[in-house]
């Protein structure tokens, strides 16, 4: 298989709280391939956002990245440099600076709160442009208007001087996307960018991301809890539960043949037009346990319909590799692996 653009391996990120250490990300391996879309899906609190933030080392106190490597191969693929481990960089390293906003653009869940209310969107856009492209003020402003136009902001020449609080949430997210696109990044990390928006705006933003991805040949790492979004956008999918990736698959395989009981339960709880009329939607019993009181063995076993007593609540499940990048972390397929 070809060299991935970004490789996360053995990532552990935790947060110190009054009640103890919360292991938000507990050994995650992921890879993102150039030009493709990876969707990371899971319930809230499963560690998907923290994983995304760890990539650019944006985890703040009291959180800390305890172990793992995040290898950026972007420079190697472009032929401009060597791969490096993002986590091993000095915080003042130029490469980290170039990664943030240069090679990797990032957009967030709350677009309006992600922009400083006291400065115009233009000023914040121009600032980023100048950091990464070295344009002078005038050229940067012209480029800023062009970018705003690209992301579909009407009347960009006027809106460039607007303050974030004068724009709608959808508009703010477009501005954030424009900022992320400043330096033609090879990866866009989107951390639930549509969660705070209404449904129609959501669809438009997704369309925008898809068309921009095709245009700029970007890879996209899309964090979401919405399986509908996954079906629409993803090439590959990683399902997370309590800080671990429990299943990896291509989007077709995932929907056609989910392996992990958690994935199966997730898919079953999505309403399907027509099918679900007149019957109760299946739900996953119980709630996500607090990360402080992680169940022993497989962390999903208390909610799992197929749990095997004496096994699932005792031993950590093995990661079963089905080949072709398809994995599931479940004891049910242990024998299958032995066969292949």
């Amino acid at each position, binding site marked *: 298989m070809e060299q991935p653009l970004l490789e996360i391996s053995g990532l552990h990120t935790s947060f110190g709280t009054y009640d103890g250490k919360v292991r938000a990300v507990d050994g995650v391996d992921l890879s993102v391939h150039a030009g493709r879309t990876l969707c990371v899906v899971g319930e809230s609190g499963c560690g998907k956002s923290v994983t995304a*933030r760890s990539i*650019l080392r*944006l985890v*703040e*106190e009291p959180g800390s990245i305890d172990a793992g490597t995040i290898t950026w191969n972007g420079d190697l693929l472009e032929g401009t440099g060597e791969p490096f481990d993002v986590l091993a960089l000095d915080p003042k390293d130029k490469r980290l*600076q*170039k*990664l*943030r*906003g*240069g090679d990797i*653009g*990032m957009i*967030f*869940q*709350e677009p309006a*709160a*992600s*922009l*400083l*209310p*006291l*400065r115009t969107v233009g000023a*914040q856009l121009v*600032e*980023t442009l100048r*950091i*990464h492209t070295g344009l002078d003020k005038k050229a940067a402003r012209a480029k800023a208007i062009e970018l705003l136009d690209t992301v579909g902001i009407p009347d960009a020449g006027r809106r460039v001087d607007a*303050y974030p*609080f*004068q724009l709608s949430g959808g508009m703010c997210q477009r501005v*954030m996307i424009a*900022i*992320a696109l*400043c330096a033609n990044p090879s990866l866009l990390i989107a951390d639930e960018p549509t969660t705070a928006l209404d449904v129609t705006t959501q669809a438009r933003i997704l369309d925008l991301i898809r068309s921009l991805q095709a245009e700029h040949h970007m890879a996209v790492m899309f964090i979401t809890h919405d399986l509908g979004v996954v079906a629409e956008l993803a090439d590959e999918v990683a399902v997370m539960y309590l800080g671990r990736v429990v299943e990896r698959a291509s989007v077709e395989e995932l929907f056609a043949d989910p392996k992990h009981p958690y994935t199966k339960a997730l898919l079953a709880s999505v309403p399907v037009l027509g099918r679900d009329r007149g019957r109760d939607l299946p739900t996953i019993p119980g709630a996500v346990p607090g990360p402080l009181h992680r169940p022993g063995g497989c962390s999903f076993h208390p909610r799992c319909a197929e749990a095997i007593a004496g096994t699932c609540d005792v031993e950590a499940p093995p990661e079963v590799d089905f080949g072709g990048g398809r994995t599931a972390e479940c004891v049910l397929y242990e024998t299958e692996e032995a066969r292949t």
Partner: protein
Amino acid sequence: MAATLLAISLVVFVIINLPPGDYVTALQSRYAAQGQNLTLQDIENLRVRYGLDGNLLQQYWHWFTQIVVHGDLGMSFEHEKPVSQVIAPRLGWTLAVSVITLLVTWALAFPIGIYSAVKQHSVGDYAVTTVSFLGLATPNFLIALVFIYFSVTWFGSVPSGLCSPEWCDASWNLGKLLDLLGHLWIPMLVIGTAGVAGLVRIIRNNLLDELRRPYVTAARARGVPEGPLLRRYPLRVALNPFVSTIGWVLPLLLVGDIVVGQILSLPTLGPILLGSLKSQDMYLAGSIIMVLSVVTVIGTLISDLLLGWLDPRIRLMGAQGARQ
């Protein structure tokens, strides 16, 4: 603004009229002490002269119009001259000491507060937090007393006033200025401590709040270097409450002046306010309270204007919008 001033004038008028008796009764007892007895007619004439005839509302109207139209604040019983003549020479010094202290307070509190927030949980932060808690909990007269104690045990005397005797009557030159600065730091220390402590806490708490906002993470994610990030993002927001503190820091300083002026005998309004309150020289006391209140209101107005200039949310949407 106008309504506020009107309200202040009402409150001050109430204060002036609270003690039993009025200016004329005070005069009367003074004459009586000198063996002169005023006739009822004399008293009536005096009352008319000072606008003290008629009911309270008429008296208020008379007092208020005298101030607005003639700038006449009434008579000081103790100093035996018009209140305005007692206040005027001291108001300049009071404002000078307060404004200089305010500027120094800011100059100290701003960097300390930022340091303490950015380096949260460091030894320096703990030291700053401890000192600012102590500063807020210590009444400023106590600071003055402690200062006096050390000053006397170490130097054998207390530096008082705003100038040394040899410079007091001299005209303004560099020597006098240096001498003034040499004296000024003491009242500044005593008056400013609570202000610095309060401001450091405000800056620190605000900045800590702001540092956790999504826009900081977002700016970091797009590669804004740490220095400019701090300056252009959270500091911009944390500056706002700072400006709006003029409204409460200024009266705090003016009040500190009452205490320090008392101990160090400064040529400011504080000591005469205290004196007038003790002798129930109510026109003088009321007028000084009024002047201090007006200064505060003007300070608040200035800070509101500055805030509007700094914060586009207030400028474009009004205060209502900024609160959301």
